[in-house]
């Protein structure tokens, strides 16, 4: 009996040593691999030089998740005049889109899994002061965490969530500050809308999380339109899903400022994209259209003149 137990103990001791040794080696490899990956993947700062400004609730960034970054670069480059700064990560590619040298968005390569019935999309980033606090508020209000908070040295800290109705968005605590509140130039993102089933309830969610002032906007067609505002600037709208849509899924939709939605919509088709909503006149008087890039990611085109932001005629 004694020898059996001794042998058992000896076996466990050797095995335990082996397990610990193996784990130690693997952890070392894991640490080195992670450090190497982090070292090669550096997202540029949102603003240079650092602004020190902070505008909670403002949409400050958008990333395209697409299976074809090269195709997206051709499309957006020719359509909007963007240039690109590639960041190679080894097996994944990320490209920063620039307009006149200023970061306009990011393109991220992601190959869909076989049989996956999902589509590429632009991911909307909303400014927060504290990602952890935002996470607490979002989860407490019925939102869902899709990607845990992560930090990137020059970019800041970010996380991805879905609102209670399923619209996906991200929050970003920019380490360089937020872009200043100026009128977007043609080719830049100018507007964002949440197209959702219940704008009323979604407005309460976003108001609680980001502290928005909420304005109801009258609509001619009886559907609900709600405006989210901070610092006396319109930041986004909530719109009810059109009643006769066959397939409905709440989502954020970002709009690029254009001089002519009609010309740009035609150009989208020439470049291999699709027009989802033909240009129509919006409440401010300019035209709006919704298009999709060649991979299917939807985005909006919005005409906006320098005088549109000024006081409406009484």
């Amino acid at each position, binding site marked *: 009996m004694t020898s059996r137990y001794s042998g*058992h103990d000896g*076996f466990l001791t050797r095995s335990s040593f082996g*397990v610990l040794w*193996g*784990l130690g080696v*693997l952890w070392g*490899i*894991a640490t080195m691999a992670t450090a190497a990956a*982090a070292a090669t993947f550096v*997202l540029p700062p949102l603003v240079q030089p650092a602004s020190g400004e902070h505008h909670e609730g403002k949409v400050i960034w958008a990333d395209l*998740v697409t299976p074809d970054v090269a195709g997206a670069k051709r499309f957006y480059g020719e359509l909007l005049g963007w240039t690109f700064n590639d960041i190679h*990560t080894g*097996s*994944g590619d990320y490209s920063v889109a620039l307009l006149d040298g200023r970061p306009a968005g990011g393109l*991220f390569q992601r*190959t*869909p899994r076989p049989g*996956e019935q*999902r589509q*590429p*999309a632009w991911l909307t980033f909303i400014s927060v002061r504290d990602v952890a606090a935002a996470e607490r508020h979002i989860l407490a209000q019925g939102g869902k965490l899709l990607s845990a908070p992560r930090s*990137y040295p020059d970019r800041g800290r*970010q996380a991805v969530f879905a609102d209670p109705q399923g619209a*996906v968005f991200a929050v970003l605590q920019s380490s360089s500050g937020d872009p*200043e*509140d*100026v*009128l977007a*130039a043609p080719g830049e993102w*100018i*507007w964002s809308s949440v197209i959702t089933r219940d704008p*009323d309830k979604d*407005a309460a969610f976003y*108001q609680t999380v980001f502290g928005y002032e909420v*304005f109801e906007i009258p609509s001619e067609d009886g*559907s609900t*339109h*709600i*405006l989210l*505002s901070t610092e006396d*600037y*319109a930041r986004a709208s909530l*719109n009810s*899903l*059109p009643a006769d*849509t*066959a397939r409905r*899924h709440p989502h954020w939709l970002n709009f690029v400022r254009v001089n002519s939605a009609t010309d740009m919509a035609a150009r989208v088709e020439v470049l291999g994209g699709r027009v*989802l*909503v033909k240009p*129509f006149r*919006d*409440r*401010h008087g300019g035209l709006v259209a*919704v298009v*999709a890039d060649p991979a299917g990611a939807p985005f909006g085109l919005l005409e906006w003149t320098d005088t549109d*932001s*000024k006081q*409406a005629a*009484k």
Partner: protein
Amino acid sequence: MNILASRRSVRGLLVVLFAAVAGCVAGGAYDGGVDVGYGVDFYDVGGYDYGGWGAGYGVGPPRRGGDRGRPDSHPAPHTSYRPASPSRSMPSLPSRSRGR
């Protein structure tokens, strides 16, 4: 039997731990690349159908000071959110251009 059982248990444990740690090395990544924190499953649900959009479906921002829809004296309907005070004028986009 105890020794054999223990050996199997420890080997099993070793395999599980190896797989878990190897997962930390190879996984946590975005399709084999670096995890940029966008969620490994982030591709939006497809099927965007905007068939009902058109005239009257306002989606863009309003002009500053635009119509808020009802006179100040008119009671607002019950909403899940806290509506802005009736005295607040409709906000709009910034009007200042970059560098000015």
